[in-house]
């Protein structure tokens, strides 16, 4: 089980901030492919991966990152702090 978190417009498109997902996906990209296949709202959120950033266990990462041993993955748009 992996906790998957969504922030900002990704959260709005998918319609929830967090969910637990049972997955055998080897990488973040594989997890995204599984999610897109689920429902249209995921396909809408993940339509353009260049517009998204990913954090793995609360560290900025990328879509090629392996998921073995990972507890938490988060998807969000580029950050706008400051």
């Amino acid at each position, binding site marked *: 089980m992996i906790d998957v978190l969504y922030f900002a417009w990704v959260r709005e498109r998918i319609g929830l901030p967090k969910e637990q997902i049972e997955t055998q996906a080897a990488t973040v990209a594989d997890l995204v492919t599984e999610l897109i296949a689920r429902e249209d709202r995921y396909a809408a959120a993940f339509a353009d991966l260049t517009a998204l950033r990913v*954090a793995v266990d609360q560290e900025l990462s990328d879509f090629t990152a392996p998921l073995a041993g990972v507890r938490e993955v*988060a998807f969000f*748009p580029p950050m*706008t*702090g400051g």
Partner: protein
Amino acid sequence: MVDVRVQEAAFQAGAELEAFSARLQNAGAVVTFSGLVRDDSGQMTEMLIEHYPGMTEAALTKIAEEAEDRWSLAGVVVIHRHGALRVGEQIMMVATAARHRGHAFEAAEFLMDYLKSRAPFWKKERGAAGDAWVAAKDADEAALDRW
């Protein structure tokens, strides 16, 4: 001394500066920066700031510790708010202290450049015409290259 706070509550920049300065030892320069809620459209009623609890604190601490090491700072403060803010309210502040002003200025700019695009905050503007997420600018990403 690294002091990182992520909070919904308002803060007093002047009081923070006083308290920070009083804790310093052997620093000759303190630089502060405050970010305020700006209304570019003229129609904004409030700004909503979302963040990633846990990661936000860790990312800000990492950036602050890097600045502390790189410019031999005597102290760093980073305060960043989240939640609903009105136009003119303080969103965040950084304060840096060093022996000389050059290091304090540079470290403050470094902190601002990094926390703009590496700390997990997202701004949404709420106004008469509806809600809109603030898009990241290419210039913000490019600003990291100079460090």
